């Protein structure tokens, strides 16, 4: 991290530091790539997350956007303590929880829960729903016996499931209902933070809206904080207070939802927004779509300088040499930061520039 970006980060930390529940500082997660055979030499690293900082204020939702391979799920797992981090720091509710031992992490596990993408794969098909939702109580030995059953049924009712279906198996529920089971399980120990990793991607639109409304109600009623990961930009816009856009393990742009969606400064954010199909034919017809060339590169051997430069419609010589710091650009709010040497200006026709480069 350069001095400049460090200053930018400290600056922002002071600004949104009033009541931060989760703070991630310069987090790095590499997965070593080893040779086959007995010696297993490390020949490289998958640089899944490479120097990411973010802060989530208590009771708010941070949306994390990015494509496959951008490192958003790895980041979430590092925050939840499911993966050890290579370097950097995760602070939860004032405590440093980076790479804690199993025993010392235990109390924090109650407060950080996760909802997974696939409602089919994340529930054990051979266990009854009541047992699945009751697991957190059993593991943390908080509630037992008849009291546990009552609590589980309360939870089921709270997420819109029939409490009488306590003894059913997951296979007897539809996709939307299974996701509600996942939500009930995450809620059981009254966590402070829930990490939602693509919680509605596998659901049909009408069911997706039911689950999103449920998550909003629970946040209001229990003061929950969400780290919300999704690739659907409209869903993220709907649920988030602020948005972080990731590209190939780094933060491209971060800021309040209105700023990032209304006036994106990073060319990648602009391309991502223009690529998302809107259910409005007139808007679709008038929109200038920025078509990028190529795919997201391999995180084993990421491009030099700005990692987006090989696909960027605005890339210049400098971009391949120097990594741009994440900083506030001229005219932006102090909470809106962009990692780009040549940020998008208002009224700029990026679609034409992209088309000219193709």
């Amino acid at each position, binding site marked *: 991290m350069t001095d400049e970006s460090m200053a930018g980060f400290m600056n922002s930390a002071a600004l949104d530091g009033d009541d931060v529940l989760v703070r991630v500082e310069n987090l790095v997660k590499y997965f070593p790539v080893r040779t086959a055979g007995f010696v297993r030499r490390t020949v490289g690293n998958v640089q899944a997350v490479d120097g990411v900082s973010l802060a989530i204020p208590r009771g708010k939702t941070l949306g994390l956007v990015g494509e496959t391979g951008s490192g958003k799920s790895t980041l979430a797992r590092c925050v939840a303590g499911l993966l050890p981090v290579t370097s950097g720091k995760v602070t939860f509710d004032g405590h440093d929880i980076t790479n804690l031992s199993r025993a010392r992490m235990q109390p924090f596990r109650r407060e950080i829960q996760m909802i997974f993408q696939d409602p089919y794969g994340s529930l054990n098909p051979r266990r009854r729903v009541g047992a699945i939702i009751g697991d957190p109580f059993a593991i943390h030995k908080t509630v037992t016996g008849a009291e546990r059953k009552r609590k589980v049924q309360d939870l089921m009712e709270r997420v819109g499931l029939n409490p009488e279906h306590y003894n059913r198996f997951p296979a007897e529920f539809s996709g939307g209902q299974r996701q509600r089971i996942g939500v009930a399980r995450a809620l059981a120990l009254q966590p402070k933070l829930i990490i939602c990793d693509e919680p509605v991607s596998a659901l*049909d639109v009408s069911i997706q809206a039911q689950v999103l409304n449920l998550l*909003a109600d629970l946040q209001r009623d229990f003061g929950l904080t969400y780290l919300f990961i999704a690739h659907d930009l409209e869903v993220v816009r*709907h649920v988030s207070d602020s948005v972080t856009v990731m590209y190939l393990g780094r933060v491209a742009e971060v800021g309040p939802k209105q700023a990032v969606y209304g006036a994106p400064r990073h060319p990648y954010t602009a391309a991502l927004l223009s690529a998302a199909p809107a*259910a409005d*034919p007139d*808007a679709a017809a008038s929109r200038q779509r920025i078509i990028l060339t190529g795919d997201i590169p391999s995180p084993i051997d990421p491009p030099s300088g700005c990692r987006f430069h090989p696909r960027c419609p605005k890339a210049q010589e400098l971009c391949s040499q120097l990594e741009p710091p994440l900083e506030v650009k001229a005219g932006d709010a102090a909470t809106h930061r962009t990692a780009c040497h040549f940020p998008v200006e208002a009224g700029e026709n990026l679609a034409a520039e992209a088309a000219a480069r193709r």
Partner: protein
Amino acid sequence: MTLLEVENLTVSFNTGDGVVRAVRGVSFAVDPGQTLGVVGESGSGKTVLTQTLLGLTPGATITGKAVFEGTDLLQLSQNQMREVRGARIAVIFQDPLTSLHPLYRVGWQIAEMIRAHEKSVTKKQAADQAVELLGRVGIPHPAQRVNDYPHQFSGGMRQRAMIAMALALSPQMIIADEPTTALDATVQAQILDLLLHLQRESGTALILITHDLGVVADIADNVMVMYAGRAAEKGTKHDIFYQQHHPYTKGLLESIPNSSGAAERLRPIPGMPPSLINLPSGCKFHPRCAYVMDRCVTQEPELQQIRDFSHLSACWLPIGAVGVGSDAERLRAEAVREGRMGAAVTVAETIAASPEVLS
């Protein structure tokens, strides 16, 4: 001249649990060069519908007609169908990884497909054609990449390879079943752009099956909304997005989070799609419909013309009740007031009365 005309197609499957009525009387037409978007949720019958056209639903009980270039596809033998499938009607499936054979080179698979249909083509010619096709769908260095295996391609490139294969024999029609669902947003934009471009170039008709209304808004000309094996509403893209008549279409559009109502609560359709084995009486959408009337419970509505001949909707609400304005809402409210004397109630009301019925 219509390219494909489907008339009153029904498809059902006999299973141990009962008869699954996947498609229950669907009619539509596709003109050359046109794009028809077929929209619906899981289990609405959209995939079974198109697979039946291609003879890919063995064991199903099929009635109706599907006339393509003057021949009824449903009457063709396996061998005759094999000549149509791939050559005159091509298919692009959702998952490009499982649609390509992992142990054969991508170029070989495209060449094989050409040679299977055109016996006079030599191996060398087919291989050259594969290179040219890969170049046409925007794969860089096609002459080298043609020798790659599918796992060496990224998701977007695999889908491009599938499109190359679909284009190989210059089909009259392409059926694309969720072609971009497995792809990231920027790659999806690339693929949709490519499909549009190629379609303009070659004048191929396209049937696009998707659950994503955004994709339909982007590239379809006409849209058919399916629910429980039937067309709930059909019309031009503008009819469906701005003048929609069927409450299911309206509900689908309102379920999507959008920029205009970003801070608002979403308005989901209550309940779930019905089981195709045990369908509700009357209109199949009535248990989830906010405008349910007594006749909806007993009588299934047929498609009726709404404003012009291209816009059809299967709903008992008055013809003028289209779109989202206050006038339309007043018309709907009036109709519901008059039409609800008996026991018609919605899922939302039932749940409000007694929450334990949620099953």
